[in-house]
């Protein structure tokens, strides 16, 4: 696998990002361990919030709740960090031309690279999230954790890769779209969008599938069965993005 050898080298060039992700993950684990040391576990094995409140008041409880919320988005963050510039960096630095004269398809080169980077994002998330849950809750969400991570990696990996064919601001634009989708979905669910239903549905369809992510996160947070229909929608949306990225690469100048 010639493209894989190059992908491994590209991963080496991103080792600082991997270390940064690991350091970020360590912050979550350190926070969970601190909470675990500060208060004893309740009957269910989880850290009791009211005991935490007694120790640190609102700030400590809020901090931990915020940490929990961000943890749910860790796969998104990891995917953006790992895949940022997956193609655009090569174009900007001129490496794409060094590869482009060789009889190996750029699709193979970048598919191998994106898959490897996405696998790293998945692996780091797949270790962090269950361990955090085990420390904080005394249990974990089981396969729903991996399904949620996979959903994020497929959708945002595809989105960053597609944007990376065209612009250097790939990860930032993807982050902006993710936040937009989050806000949009919240407003939609609250029925607070004062726009025609056709426009609302179109925007909801085009933006990253936050409603499906919400369903997956719900199952993950409440230890409920995995909503496979939501997962299937997310996978379909992600695959379309990957396919568009592949098509764009055919004609893109380097």
């Amino acid at each position, binding site marked *: 696998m010639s493209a894989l050898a190059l992908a491994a080298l590209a991963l080496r060039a991103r080792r600082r990002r991997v270390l940064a992700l690991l350091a970020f993950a360590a912050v979550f684990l350190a926070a969970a361990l601190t909470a675990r040391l500060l208060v004893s576990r309740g009957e269910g094995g989880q850290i009791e919030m009211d005991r935490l409140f007694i120790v640190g008041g609102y700030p400590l409880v809020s901090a931990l709740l915020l940490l929990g919320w961000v943890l749910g988005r860790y796969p998104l963050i990891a995917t953006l960090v790992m895949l940022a510039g997956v193609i655009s960096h090569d174009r900007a630095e001129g490496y794409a*031309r060094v*590869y*482009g*004269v*060789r*009889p*190996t398809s750029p699709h193979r080169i970048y598919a191998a690279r994106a898959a490897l980077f996405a696998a790293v994002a998945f692996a780091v998330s797949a270790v962090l999230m269950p361990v955090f849950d085990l420390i904080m809750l005394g249990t974990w969400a089981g396969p729903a954790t991996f399904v949620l991570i996979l959903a994020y990696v497929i959708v945002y990996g595809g989105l960053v890769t597609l944007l990376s064919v065209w612009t250097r601001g790939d990860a930032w634009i993807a982050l902006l779209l993710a936040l937009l989708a989050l806000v949009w979905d919240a407003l939609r669910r609250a029925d607070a969008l004062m726009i025609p239903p056709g426009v609302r549905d179109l925007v909801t369809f085009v933006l990253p599938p936050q409603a499906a992510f919400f369903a997956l996160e719900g199952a993950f947070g409440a230890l409920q069965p995995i909503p496979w229909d939501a997962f299937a929608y997310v996978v379909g949306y992600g695959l379309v993005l990957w396919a568009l990225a592949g098509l764009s690469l055919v*004609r893109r100048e380097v």
Partner: protein
Amino acid sequence: MIEFREVSKRFGAPGRPGKPAVEALAGVSLEIPAGGVWGVVGPNGAGKSTLFALLLGFIHATTGSVRVRGLEPRRYARRHGAAYLPERFRLPGEWRVRTALRALARLEGIARGAAARRADELIERLGLASHADREVRTLSRGLNQRLGLAQALLAERELVVLDEPTEGLDPLWRVRFRAIVSELRDAGRTVLIASHDLAEVERLASRVVLLERGRVRSILDTAAEAAAGGVTPYRLELAAPVPELTEVFPEAEAIEGDVGTAYRVAAADATELSRRLAALLEAGAVVVSVQPLHEPLEARVRRELSAEADT
């Protein structure tokens, strides 16, 4: 082998505020046969790198067509590959020389073991052995350029495109680079070299494309021009003037601005030159030196460009 037909390339959309459209190439038509070394010269912004980018399929022509062996360039590169050294060659700084070359050799379709051997061969050949395990970012400019040459030579490709190949090379490596290009030429490859170093291009290339403001100003073909004239001019320097000079070399004329006893003479070939010189020596002349006299590429390029400026 290579055919540019009325090729134009415009960057930027016309009418876009703050970003005026730039016509990098305009109506370029060019045919380059297989085999031999071609130079591409011209001032900054003349379109040399754009010409190469079109040739290798990195960018698409706005109008006109480019074909390499009858194929669209990107298709040619995917099918046959090309050897390419970009201007200001770079690889990711964290990569190590040996592993980078091995990985690139694998992209050439070379099997793992053979790729490792080929990379090691080129590391030796390009004098990178003591730097093979260093990160690319720690290399000096000259070493980086040698790494660029090494990666371009990983596979034996019919088409070799070198953009400013001697930039950063020290005199010793320039000489070695010439040997490499000679080998490529002798092996029947088609080598294209873009450079601002006209003396270097003159040494290496048999034909030179002069670009200016995106247009082919002229194609300088020294071999053909000499053959067309039927004679080769020489600079003949004598110790002192002799009246027999005009009898032996009727077309002799003093070279203006040179030493007083230097003359421009001509002969069809070395045999005729020797015969005439023998006659001159017999007449009592003392010959200080005889050198082939041709207008250096630099002077020709300057003349062509100033002629363009005058029009």
